[in-house]
Every structure is written in C-alpha cells, then in structure tokens.
C-alpha cells in the first residue's frame, strides 16, 4: 500500500507539475470536437433557428422535438452529422499517439522539457508508437473478441434460466472481467510506451517483452493504481453530469457549456495520472541503472610505526607502470 501510495503520489505529482500537457490535450479535444459538431449544427440550424417549436428544446429537453428534428428530410442523412464526429474522434486518437511520447519524456524529466525537445521526442517515437499501437490493437482486439464471445455464450446460457437476474449477473460479471483484463493489457502497453520513449528503444518487441514481465511482476500494485484512477474518472463524469442536470437551468446554454467542458477537462486528468504512474514505475523498477566510473586518485601511503620504537626506514617507492 505504501508502494502504491508512492506510485500514485509520484504519478500525480508528475501530472500536476506538467499541467500544460492536460491543457494542450484539452484544447486539442475541444477543437476537434467542434470540428465534429459543425456538420450537426449545419443540419439542425436551418430547422431550429426560425421555429418556435425549438423553444421546447431550450426550455426543457423534449425528446419528441429532437426525434422529429432527426426525422425531418431536410435534416439529411444522420451519417452526415455522425461521420464528422467519428472522424474527429479518430483524429484525436492519432494526435494522442503523436504527442504522447513528448508527454512521457516530460513526465520523466526533472526540468521543464523545452518545446523543441518535446517535438523531437514525438517525431523520434512516432513510427515506434504506430507499430506498438498495431500490436496492442491486435492483442487487445483478439482477447476482447474471445472474452466477449465467451461472455455472450454464457449470457445466452443464463437466459435459459428461469431466474431473470441470472443473465444480468452473468453479463455484469463478464463485463467486469473484460474490463479488468483490458486494464491489465492497457497497463502492459502503457509500460511499453514508456519504455520505448525513456529507453529510446528502437526494438519495440523488446519493450513489449520487458513490459509484459513487469506487468505480471507488479500486477496487483499497478492494477490497483489504475483502477483507482478509473474510479476517479467515473466520479468526475458522474459528478459533472449530475451538476449539469441539477444545477444548470435548461435554458442556460453558456452554463451547460462551461460545466460540460470542465467535466471533460477534469476527465483527462485520470488518464494522464495513469501515464504518470507508469513513468514513475518505470523509473523505480525498469530503468537500467547507470554505473558511474571515476578515475582512481593516488593517496599518500602512511607506514605504520614499529612497535619497538625503532625508526621506520622507508622502502623504495612503488613502481607505477606507465599506462
């Protein structure tokens, strides 16, 4: 537990000392989010802007009005608004992969990482990260596919039971297991990412192997810290949504925007905290120690006195071979 506290604390310290990264990612998140929203606004605006009917969306949130808006032919195909949202979400993913090496290097540094160093690290690790993402995607995809398949089969079997709740429990248990397994896999590949960046490891497979060993060596410790950060994220999200629903008046669009964006800003922290934890763990457990070698200085040799009081006759000086 003390070790965990150390990881959690040092991880959080890294996040707090490098708050600018969260701000940068938040700005990226909202800018790309706005890009993903433009299509929707272009579709909904002509329907809502001149109609009094849209007041029912403003003064409350009438699901009927919203459904009717989506069903209007002039709204166009729903893909026209969904596609940009998905595209910009994927773009955020790519941006994260691109800039993450700089963040990890920044977390490992004891000083403020200059921008040029940040981007240099990003560039140097880009291809490595892409390779790692492909490996992670395959591994996580295969394992998730198997787990979901097993879960589906178990749920189907449970649905034959006369106990209605059995299938619910099986589903929940299955999702919990899948979540835990996926978290373990995430820890593994997070450690690999850190190792690639901080060891300047060209061979991605070596980092994957090393990280796998460390993941299982310190599984309980790392999993506990990751789960705690996830719980914080869940609390942030629920808290934000509750605040939005309870304390923001339906027609207060600015208030809703601020609360939702603050929630999203704070929602970034737990994931960065997890990355801070992996950097701390790497520094504590995975970093190969550097052995400093210093030149040997000559020291004067003091001869001990003879116990009978006779003077000590100095011998010939020691011959030092020339190097």
């Amino acid at each position, binding site marked *: 537990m003390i070790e965990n506290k150390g990881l959690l604390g040092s991880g959080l310290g890294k996040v707090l000392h490098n708050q600018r990264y969260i701000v940068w990612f938040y700005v990226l998140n909202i800018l790309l989010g706005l890009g*993903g929203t433009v299509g929707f606004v272009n579709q909904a605006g002509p329907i809502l*802007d*001149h*109609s009094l009917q849209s007041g029912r969306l403003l003064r409350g949130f009438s699901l009927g009005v919203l459904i009717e808006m989506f069903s209007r032919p002039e709204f166009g195909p729903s893909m026209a608004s969904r596609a940009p949202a998905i595209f910009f979400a994927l773009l*955020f*993913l790519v941006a994260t992969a691109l800039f993450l090496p700089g963040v990890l290097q920044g977390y490992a540094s004891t000083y403020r990482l200059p921008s040029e160093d940040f981007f240099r690290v990003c560039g140097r690790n880009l291809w490595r990260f892409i390779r790692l993402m492909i490996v992670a*995607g395959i591994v996580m995809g295969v394992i998730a596919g198997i787990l979901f398949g097993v879960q589906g089969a178990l749920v189907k079997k449970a649905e034959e039971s006369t106990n209605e*709740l059995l299938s619910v429990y099986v589903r929940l248990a299955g999702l919990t297991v899948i979540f835990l397994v996926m978290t373990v896999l995430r820890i593994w590949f997070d450690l690999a990412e850190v190792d690639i960046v901080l060891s300047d490891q060209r061979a991605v497979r070596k980092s994957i192997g090393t990280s796998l060993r460390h993941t299982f060596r310190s599984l309980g410790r790392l999993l506990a810290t990751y789960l705690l950060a996830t719980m914080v994220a869940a609390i942030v999200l629920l808290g934000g949504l509750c605040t939005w629903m309870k304390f923001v008046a*339906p027609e207060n669009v600015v208030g809703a925007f601020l609360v939702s964006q603050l929630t999203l800003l704070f929602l970034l922290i737990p994931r960065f905290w997890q990355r801070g934890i992996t950097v701390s763990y790497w520094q504590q457990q995975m970093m190969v120690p550097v052995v400093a070698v210093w030149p040997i200085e000559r020291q004067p040799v003091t001869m001990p006195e003879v116990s009978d009081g006779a003077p000590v006759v100095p011998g010939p000086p020691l011959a030092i071979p020339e190097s």
Partner: protein
Amino acid sequence: MQIRWTFVIFIAVFAPGLTASMNRRTVAATTPQAPPLPARTAATAENAKDAAPISIPETTLAINSDKPMSQRVVHYQIDAKYDTGKHIVDAIEVLTYHNLTGQALDHFPFHLYQNAFQPKSTWVREAKIQGSRDTDYEKWEEKQYGSEEIKRIEVVGQGDLTAQLQYIAPDDGNKDDKTVIDLHLIRPIAPGAYVQFKIAFRTKFPETQARSGWRRDFVLGGQWFPKVGVWWHGAWNCHQYHATTEFFADFGVYDVKLTLPQNEIVGASGVLVEAKNNPDNTQTVTYHGDDIHDFAWTASPRYKIRESQYQAQMGPIQLRFLMQPAHWSQAERHERITRETLDRFEKWYGPYPYKTLTVVDPEPDSAAGGMEYPTFITGDTSWFMPEGLHLPEVVVEHEFGHQYWYGMVATNEFEDAWMDEGINSYTEVKVLDSILGKNTSMLNIAGITLGEREEQRLSYIGVADRDAMAQKAYEYYSFGSYGGITYGKTASVLLTLEGVIGEDTMAKAMHTYFMKYCFTHPTKEDFLKTIEEVSGKDLRWYFNQAVYGSPVMDYEVLDINSFPVNWYEEKKDKKAAKKAAEGDTVYQSYVSLHRKNDFVMPVEVEIKFDNGETVREHWDGKNRWTRFSYQKKAKVVSAQLDPDHTVQIDRNNFNNSRLAEPNAKPVHKVANFWLFITQCLSQALGWWAV
C-alpha cells in the same frame, strides 16, 4: 386409435364433472348440462331427441349485475388438460350457439388460430414480408411451431361431422393456411334455434408469438381453442389469422376447466369458481366468465401474487397481479396505474361491470407482453425500470383500455383495427396525460421528457401517406404502417378533432359511444355518427380525409416580412432612421401561410409584433396559400400556426411557426450535447487505444 381412447376417457370422466360443478357453484339453475360426448359410433339423431333442451345460461356470477349485459350468442364449456413439458392442451369443447341471425345456418366457420404458427401459414408469410416483432424466422425451429387440430366434431342431433370439416382461406386463398375451418351441417339450424357442437381438439402452443404460447416454464393460453366466427351484416365473418390482425368474436358465457400440475400458479379470464388438487399431483381450476367474447389463461410456477379490491361503480372488483419475482418491487406501480386508470375510465366513459381484473407480468423476453383479453391483460416491464420511464404504466393503461375498446365495445379487429387500437390509443393519451402529465407521460428522467401524445404523433408522421385508417388490418403496407396508422394516426386524428368540436364535446361523444355500443359490435359509421350527433356538426369533410383517406397535413408559415411603408423616403432622408428609433415609423408587414400537402383544414395563426401586440387570424386553408398584411408602428416578431396546439396530425411542427430573427440558442444547446458526446468519444478512444 390412441387418440380415440383418450377421447372417450375424456368424455366419460370430465364432461359430466364439469357441468355438474358449474351447476353447483354458479347460479346454475339455468346452466345447461353439457351431455357427455358419445363415442363416434353412438352418435345418432335419436340421442339428440333424448337430450335436455339446450340454451345459453343467464348466469351473472362474473359480473356486478343481476342480469346479463350482452346478447349472449355462445356458451363455451371447455375441459382442458395442459402438458407443461410438451406445451400441449388436450381438451373437449362443448359450444352452444344461439342462432340470432334471422336465417337458417347450414355451415359454421371456426378459427384455429394456433395454426398460424406454421411455416406455410398466411401469418408467417406476411410476417416475413412485413416484419415481425416476435421471431427471427431464420432461426425458427419446428419445436417452436404451434398447431391446433380438431380431432373430432359432433353436432348434437346430427352426429359426428368430422368428415365434413374443410379448411378455407377466405382472405388470400392460401391453401396451406389452416387458421379457418368450415363445417357444413347435414341440416341447417333454424333461426332462433340452438345448436351444440362437441369438439375434441389438441393445441400445441408455439414458443411465444403474437402474445400466445410458452417460454421457459411460462405459458400464455390465448386463442387456444376452436372458436366460431361471427355472423355480421348478413354473412359469416371469420378471417384468417394475419400477422397484423387481432380477433373478433361473439359475446357469451365461458366455463373453462383447466387441469395442470399443482405447482403452477394460474390466472385466467373470469372468476375462479373451483380449485382442487388431484391425486396425480395435478390441480383442476374452474373459471366462469359472463358477457365476454374470449377466454385466456396463464400459468407459471414462479408468479408472485398481489391482490386487492377496487370499489367500482357497479360493485367491487378483485384485482389480481401476477408478477415475475424479479419485478416484485414494481407490483405497487402496476396496481397504482391500474387503479388510476380504472378511476378515469369509470368517470369518463362508463362503468367496468366485471368482478375481476387479472394483470399478468409475463415471462421476460417472451413476446407475451402487452396483450388484452377480457378481464385479463398482460403488462410489460423489465428488472430495471426507473420511475421516470413509464413503460409499465403505458402498457398496463393501454391494455386495460381494451377492456372498453375491444372487450365491451367489441369492434371487428380484423377489419377496423383503428376502432380498438386507435380509439384505445386516444383514450390512453387522455388518461395518461391526466395521471402522469401531458409532456411527461412516457418519459421524465433528468429533464428529458416525452409525452404519450407526442409518441403517438411521431409513430404516425413517419408513415403518414402510406395507408388510410379505414381499411382492413391485414391490408396495410407493413407492420410499421399498421402500427403508425391504427394506433398513432387514430389517436392524433381524435386529438385534433377535440380542437374542432371542443374537448368537452369530444369527451361527451366518447361517453355516449361507449354507453350506446357496449356489448355490441359497432361499425366505423356508428362511431363517427355518434360524434356528429353529439357535436351537432357535419364532420364529413374531416372524416373523409382523416379516416377514409390518406391525405397528409402540412401547413407552414412561408414567410414573414416587415419594412417601412415610406421606405423610399427613408432611403433618402437619414432623419427617418432616427424617427424609426423613436417608434414613429409605420411598417408594412406580411405573413404568408402555405398548405404544402393535400389535407385541407381551417387553421388559426397568431402573429406577434414587437410592441407586444398579438393578432389572431383564421384561414380556411382551401387555397394553397394566403397572405395577411398589416400596417402598424411595429414589426412582426413571429407567426405561429395552431397557437393552441390542437392539431396533432400536421406532419411538420417546425414549419408551423416562424421567427423574424433567428434564435440560435436551441441549436447551440443541442450542439453542446453533440460536442460533449464527440469529446467523450474522443477521450474514450484515447483512453483505450493508445
């Protein structure tokens, strides 16, 4: 051969017991004995001469009335044994039919509804084309099929007529459809006479389809016995079972004896008159129903029972709720909505005369939810049902409403589905509005709301130009069109009618309609004429479009515009601008209205000016467009068609109003949700993928 022996044993053992029991436990003085069904070789006309005269009993055991409330045409006495493992009912049915048609009848068609659940049936054929909410037919296996077979039929006085049976397909000629069977008699039944049929039949329930059948250890016995057609408007009305149709039957008396394992908890139409355990670990329960036109039952070993009493206008009603164990916490919700619905129906439409009402919470994932039978309905809920999501309330209210619109006002569901489902959807809106709120009757969670009337309208506008209300239920384009028109359009049309004749007048018309036609089979014209009579208005212009036709309504505020009357002077004179600021400028304003589609109806429009003034105009809507013009020291701010929101059938509510200046706040609000979701999606991807 084996069937024959079973048949004889049934006759010998159960038929006398059933009738004796009924005579003992019900009023019974008038209950006729159902004579034992003789062996095939013994059936002769001579035997009939010796039998007691047959009639329909005038029992009132199941109603809060001391005399029958309907013209009783049929009396079904059924002695059935249910095999829970095979999902098979073996039964003897004694049907007494009173020929009130005014003419001799030489043949009788019977519904065999369970044969619909066979691969070549019309029902399945249509369901595959139109879409089914119950079954994925690609995965449908033989063990899930249903069937209904008449093993033997005898007509008292005419003997065994099994050989006379012939499957017919009056609607589509499908020779593989076995949902209607016709029996030709040797001698016709004279007007006013009675005829008694003795039928041995076997029904195998399907895995639940169309709210009938088994699922796990649950069974819902609906449309499970051979049922005679209705003589209506000079002919037999006995349609095949279609994917979108329901039922039609005559009123009468039901005495049903069910034998099934002792661990089964049973619910059924009517009142329970006897329950006894048998030595072979079975139980036999006997139910009696008066003035009903169908009988359904359910059994499951796991029901939890909640019972209470409701004091109705005609007497007490025993309320019985059969709940799934995982839904037990929702039993109170079910009871509350049942009581409140009963209260509204009795106040607004008329009394509920029956002594019982059974509300069944069916097996989850069973396609048995949301069904109505006389004094017996099924709800629909799930283990997770937040208070603000009113699905159980909506379903229970709707199915209870069918006790009136189908149960008592027994319209032809094959031909006029809108008269039961649609009128019921209209009263559903009215009742739920009053109980749960106009805009929140369906959903009220975290500020997100949906009203039942909106839901009905939304289901209609998607299929508005597809079909008319007044057409046979099996002739709709699709299942979606059937639902959108019969439920959604009818409800919306009747809500809109309130705006034409007044809400109070409409309420009076509905009350009059119920009181005049309960326990009869009214036609669409009976309903429409009642509204015209009560309102004192000729409403043909409305009914011809809304009920008999499929025109679509879409009015719009095409344009609003204001400009200074002396615009040419102001252009030259800059002082004029200052004058305008002082409010002295006179503006010429126009408001243009447009009828985009073919439904013609007078409409109101409310025009608001920037000095706070409001003007209401009336437009007969006959021309394609009209324009109102004004000269005022104020500019038009907005125009709104149907400002009282009485029109529910307009296909597009957004163009019913127009603001002079756009208001971007609503779109910003919705866009903020979209933005939030997009960002959440981005972060989730970033969380898991890298």
